[in-house]
């Protein structure tokens, strides 16, 4: 590990002041950053511990929830209001990592965790445009079973590994940000970027910008929501494909729907096209399957991950069928 200094921020404005240093990085639970620093993928010169930021989960005036950036993944998953009003979020969190890691990990860190592409981690042996812009991408011609099928580029085919973010994308979550020039909010679906020509730039954050909270708008339909994760073993593994969905059916028709996919792209993938195809239509397995086709129509599988296309379609149809109470 490259030497660094470790400091602790007492609150958001203190964190921003400390972050003026060029080599400074915020530090949540450390479960991703410590690993990346040990592998020298990341070499910050200053770490700013931001676990002193808000750890509260509070109801907002319009009936939603405001979740502090330092809330742990466990605390969010176990919160009564989340379990009742946004079960997809509890489900997504407990489907991720292990209990020990969820106890350490923060909301802010989960959002900004980096890809698990093995070439990205392999500093000595592999070329990676994300780690070293312009170097090339060894995943494209290499082992790419876990890589992206949607929205990738000739520069990078990595996926965003978070489960929690997939649920947040489906729930219309807003990310509250703070920087020296002020505060702003971004929809979670617009926080992460597609790789394009600059895969090293992963989010819309300005340098030094801090995540202070996540806001969930009130969404009564989310009381009926679900998360399904398909992985190589039953527990403690990243998603090959995952689906977060909320569904409202009235008189056999889809009144409203939210759908997002994980494990398929460089960002949590909100399935806007499938949602549009579903709204107002029949709540049948045939319609769910057709909507999944629409979403995956532009999928571009690589050498090893063609299976993800069919897997994503089937998982979408199965989750929606479950929520609608119709058999697949």
């Amino acid at each position, binding site marked *: 590990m490259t030497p660094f200094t470790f400091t602790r921020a007492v609150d958001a404005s203190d964190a921003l002041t400390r972050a003026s240093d060029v080599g400074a990085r915020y530090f949540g639970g450390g479960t991703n950053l*410590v690993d990346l620093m040990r592998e020298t993928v990341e070499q910050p010169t200053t770490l700013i511990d931001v676990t002193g930021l808000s750890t509260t989960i509070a109801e907002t005036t319009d009936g939603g929830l405001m979740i502090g950036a330092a809330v742990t993944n466990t605390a969010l998953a176990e919160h009564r209001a989340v379990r009742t009003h946004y079960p997809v979020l509890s489900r997504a969190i407990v489907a991720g990592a292990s209990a*020990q890691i969820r106890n350490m990990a923060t909301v802010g860190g989960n959002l900004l965790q980096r890809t698990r592409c093995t070439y990205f981690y392999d500093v000595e042996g592999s070329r990676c445009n994300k780690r070293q812009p312009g170097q090339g991408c060894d995943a494209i011609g290499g082992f790419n079973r876990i890589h992206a099928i949607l929205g990738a580029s000739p520069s990078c085919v990595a996926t965003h590994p978070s489960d929690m973010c997939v649920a947040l994308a489906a729930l219309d979550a807003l990310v509250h940000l703070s920087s020296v020039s002020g505060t702003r909010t971004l929809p979670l679906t617009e926080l992460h970027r597609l790789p394009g020509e600059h895969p090293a730039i992963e989010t819309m954050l300005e340098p030094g910008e801090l995540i202070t909270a996540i806001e969930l708008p009130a969404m009564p339909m989310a009381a009926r929501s679900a998360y399904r994760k398909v992985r190589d073993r039953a527990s*403690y593994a990243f998603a090959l494909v995952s689906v977060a969905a909320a569904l409202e059916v009235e008189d056999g028709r889809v009144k409203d729907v939210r759908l997002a996919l994980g494990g398929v792209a460089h960002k949590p993938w909100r399935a806007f096209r499938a949602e549009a195809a579903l709204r107002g239509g029949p709540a049948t397995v045939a319609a769910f399957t057709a909507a999944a086709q629409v979403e995956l129509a532009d999928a571009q599988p690589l050498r090893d991950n063609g299976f993800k296309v069919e897997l994503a379609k089937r998982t979408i149809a199965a989750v929606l069928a479950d929520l609608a109470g119709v058999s697949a």
Partner: protein
Amino acid sequence: MSITVNGLPVPLPSDPRVSLLDMLREDLHLPGTKKGCNQGACGACTVLVDGQRILSCLALAVQYDGRAVMTVEGLAQGGELHPLQAAFVEHDGFQCGYCTPGQLCSAIGMAAEVKRGVPSHVTGDLSAETIALDREELRERMSGNLCRCGAHNGIVDAIFEVYAETEAAE
């Protein structure tokens, strides 16, 4: 800057790069906590911080300034094994023993989570106030602790004996 380890205050390392795991093993000569993968994938390094189970390999020691760490060395009291340690012996909950300290600390943290009502991936009803620790719940909740000897059946039996009963009796 100091933390307590098994009840005793100890100074933190001056180099912030030192992981909590290396501090325990190298600086404090408490080798009970094991280094398996050093990257969060095996659970051998599990310790309790203020009663919560965490992975000491992914933790910087300085992060835990002011907190109370408990390792496997702190479980036995007055020469008596912790009931969970005794159950591991009783049920053959280990072969080589390398994963055992992590399994023990993890199980103690897990029992507290169940008591608090923290849901797991296999919990059927998220709205339930209490969660019964059946074998399926136990296996899922302990999935962050691998055992390369395959002693899982004994591990599950030992933990089940100590904690399933107490939860049910609540």
